[in-house]
């Protein structure tokens, strides 16, 4: 019995809790990608770098706060800085929309032109971020490190295995949950949110109904930029901030959006968790877990790890391909691109 409990705690500690946190981060990123796809109808290759830009702004403000002694007690100062980062990300998104995308929208260019333009934006954002904060790793997390420490958990329960929950993980899950609720409320209930859905569903009819496309686009960028900054900040608090890593997050984020059904917000969330849990479960070494569950004195040889962590991209990719082949519209019915 105790062995089984130990096994469960072990799995929670190394698979479930990290998977939940990572899944929430991916889901927030994928929501942004999917909204831009739904309204502006292109895959935004600059989304990873938008995340990096927003997070960078958060980091800079966090450092300022820290240097003048403002802090948020047990939670990271970065949460206080978050609104400023969101504003910065919104600002730059709108700037790029006005100066780049708007032109192609008026011209009704095909989606691939938008994608290529987003590659240009990606380069520029990438350059800006590296220019301002440099290409290296930045750690900006402060406040309490843990909500539950492994040792405390062991003392509390008397089990061999400890369950540690990092503050960043707890915050990620809570913030992501609140943001998702707010987003769904906005999309389902508010007038502007409904207008966004209408525009995404049937652009011509939306125009006939007097929905102002500029306003819809404006809100889409505002929301996508906010989601990107929140996702990036949570990821950075949980792991660390490095511009290149954020650029690379593009792949799992796209995978999440597509697996869930691109253009469908619910799908983006489901996709985020599917991708995250697949990555974590496939790259976890099950040796200890099996020792608990197996007969007394038995141990598997090797780590019992299906894939080394270096191949986590392969996991997103394989799931992506499977979904594309079996169900091209994704788990929830998205648009077929």
């Amino acid at each position, binding site marked *: 019995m105790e062995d089984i409990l130990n096994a469960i705690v072990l799995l929670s500690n190394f698979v479930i809790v990290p998977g939940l946190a990572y899944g929430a981060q991916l889901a927030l990123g994928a929501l942004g990608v999917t909204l831009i796809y739904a309204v502006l109808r292109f895959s935004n290759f600059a989304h990873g770098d938008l995340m990096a830009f927003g997070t960078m702004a958060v980091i800079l403000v966090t450092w300022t706060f820290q240097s003048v002694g403002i802090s948020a007690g047990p939670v990271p100062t970065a949460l206080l800085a978050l609104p400023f980062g969101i504003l910065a990300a919104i600002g730059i998104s709108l700037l790029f929309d006005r100066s780049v995308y708007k032109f192609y929208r008026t011209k009704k260019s095909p989606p691939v032109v938008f994608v290529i*333009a987003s590659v240009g934006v990606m380069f520029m954002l990438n350059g800006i971020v590296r220019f301002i904060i*440099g290409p290296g790793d930045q750690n900006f997390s402060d406040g309490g490190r843990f909500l539950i420490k492994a040792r405390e958990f062991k003392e509390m329960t008397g089990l061999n295995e400890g369950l540690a929950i990092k503050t960043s993980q707890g915050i990620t899950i809570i913030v992501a949950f609140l943001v998702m609720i707010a987003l769904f409320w906005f999309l389902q209930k508010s007038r502007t949110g409904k207008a966004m859905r209408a525009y995404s569903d049937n652009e011509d009819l939306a125009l006939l109904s007097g929905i102002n496309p500029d306003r819809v686009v404006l809100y889409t960028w505002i929301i996508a930029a906010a989601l990107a900054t929140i996702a990036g900040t949570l990821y950075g608090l949980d792991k660390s901030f490095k511009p290149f890593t954020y650029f690379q997050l593009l792949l799992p984020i796209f995978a999440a959006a597509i697996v869930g059904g691109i253009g469908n917000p619910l799908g983006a969330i489901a996709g985020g968790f599917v991708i995250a849990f697949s990555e974590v479960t496939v790259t976890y070494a099950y040796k200890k877990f099996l020792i608990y569950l197996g007969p007394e004195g038995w141990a598997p040889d090797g780590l019992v790890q299906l894939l080394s962590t270096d191949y986590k991209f392969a996991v997103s990719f394989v799931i992506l391909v499977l979904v594309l082949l079996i169900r091209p519209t994704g788990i929830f019915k998205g648009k077929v*691109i």
Partner: protein
Amino acid sequence: MKLPVPAQFAIMGLLLVLVGIFQSWSVALAILNLCLISSVMALGVNIQWGYAGLFNVGIMGFAALGGVGAMLVSVPPVREAWAAGGLQVIGSGLLVLAVIAAVVFARRTLEGRTRSLATVALVAGGYFLVRAVFDPAVDAIEAVDPAKSGFLGGLGLPIIFSWGIGGVFAAGAAWVVGKIALGLRSDYLAIATLGISEIIIAILKNEDWLTRGVKNVSGLPRPVPLEINLIQSPWFTDLSARIGADPVAFAGIFVKLCYAALFTIVLLAILWLSQRALHSPWGRMMRAIRDNRDAAEAMGKDVTKRHLQTFVLGSAVVGIAGAMLVTIDGQFTPGTYNPLRYTFLIWVMVIVGGSGNNYGSVLGGFLIWFLWIQAEPAGLWLMNVLTMPLAEGSALKAHLLQAAPHLRLFLMGLILLLVLRFSPRGLIPEETGRKAA
């Protein structure tokens, strides 16, 4: 008002000459060599994008496959490693094939639930079986003199053969990717190729038994003489004396010229073939498919198959370029592949040069590589000027100066966006109309 094509190339040449005069000829030739390779790569992408409208963002992966081809062809085999685990590695390769064959067989013969169950069982069983053979072999191989080798090595053939092999490697991977992803719409192809290139790099970085991973394989043999041998040969010292050059400096330049000659031959050959293909009935059909897929399909063209052809051909060209790149570097370093440099920069070249035009891709390859290299010193110079008013030793000034090189990413994005906006057909637009020169 556009400049005629020869004038554009002449200006490009002039830029390189100016670098030769004001910086050094060695720098100018180094840039030239990479320009040549970039042009080949851009040609490959243009075959996919310009001819067929395929949006491939996995260029890095195909270039890296070409690079690993160069490494595997040229380095000598490591006999101890082969003795330690070579057979087992080959054996596990055969096992993988056997498992695949069994799965295919099971799926052909069985039905319903049993079919799914058998598939899962075979894949899972096969996976553990392969790991049981493969893992010990890898450990044994990687234990052989890890500081110097720890991998199987290659064939020990002249590296120049590898350029073709690199192309074949890339083509093979492209065939598999194309089979999976080409039926899908453009955005999916983009994301699938983005994924596959990351996976290829991950494999090259982590399968140490094959590539030494991040420990790199350096000291690859060269297709051109070594500087040190040149300096010691009488004919070379004679030649240097006759043109009045310092033998040591001239040796470096001579070697670069040799590379440039080889690369130019490859570039011209591929350019010639690409032009032939573009103006053949095949090329016309490809463009017809690109411009109106539905109409072409209605006329009975097998669009997916044609796309697969172009995808494989274009990737092969990228693979050749990737092998050439490793050749001139003299080392294979999986850790240095970065999609911005190896995928998206090539895209900038193709778009700026002019999608669908082979000469455009060549010019784009030259110009963008030139700017990519020169933007670094230019950015630094600009920052130096801009930060003049700041006090010497101020932290801001130090930061700005040190960060200046990153501005070149910004510049590339800006160039791409400006061209896309104001000259969407690029520097040398695609030839339209029936008769093209």
